[in-house]
């Protein structure tokens, strides 16, 4: 069962981005994350944390996942009253790595980085679909003038 289906009717989609599955597009993913987090009213630290976490999730999708028929990876941003979630989806079927990363490993730090920066990281896998959901709770009120929809 995928636990990532949103049951919360109060959730609003803030933005979507379909990104060519190329590493040269990572800067676009980071800018999208920063801008959307800013629109939600997050401060500079919160925007940076989303940019880093989304960058890691999109990197994993490019490196280990599979793009859709158009060669794209999907990003969707959902907001509720008190949280912001970026969902990064590819059409691969995630399999857990066999070896655990250590301090001297060259690979395998991405999930640790995402988990540290986010309040919740969910991995939803079904055949032909892998989604990483990155969520931060929104502490305090949105910044004055922030475009909350």
């Amino acid at each position: 069962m995928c636990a990532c289906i949103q049951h919360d009717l109060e959730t609003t989609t803030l933005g979507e981005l379909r990104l060519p599955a190329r590493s040269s597009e990572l800067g676009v993913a980071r800018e999208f994350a920063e801008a959307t987090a800013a629109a939600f009213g997050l401060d500079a630290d919160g925007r940076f944390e989303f940019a880093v976490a989304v960058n890691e999730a999109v990197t994993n999708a490019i490196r280990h996942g599979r793009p859709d028929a158009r060669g794209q990876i999907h990003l969707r941003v959902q907001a509720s009253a008190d949280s912001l979630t970026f969902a990064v989806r590819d059409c691969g079927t995630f399999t857990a790595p066999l070896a655990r990363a250590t301090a001297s490993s060259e690979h395998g730090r991405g999930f640790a980085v995402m988990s540290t920066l986010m309040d919740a990281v969910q991995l939803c896998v079904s055949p032909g679909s892998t989604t990483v959901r990155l969520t931060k709770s929104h502490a305090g009120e949105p910044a004055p003038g922030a475009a909350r929809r």
Partner: protein
Amino acid sequence: MAFFYLSEDTTALACAGEQVIVLVAGGELDHHASPTLRQQIAGYIEAGKRSLVLDLSAVTFIDSTAIGVLVGAAVRLQEANGGSVAVVCAPANERVLRIFDIAGVGNAITLSSSREDALLAMAPAG
């Protein structure tokens, strides 16, 4: 469009010694930049450099892939000849330092706040 650069600090040669290469990086070090970063570092290692000092003070973004490349270089240098990688990052660059802290490089890489400190730490005792 993201960019990054990596250049050699030739002025550091006098105090660094011939076996140490001092590099200065800037811009965004992500998965896209990592193959070039890996290739350039490998070139210096193949040219006989024993240790690497890499100043990341001007880097605006770094991710786990690029940090992995540096860890890989450190492991390779250590195994080949007991060499090492020292990363320099000015304390003001809190974002890069924070990612290093989160990614966890253990003892594989030493972090210094200036090139001088990194070179001093690398110099043989006595």
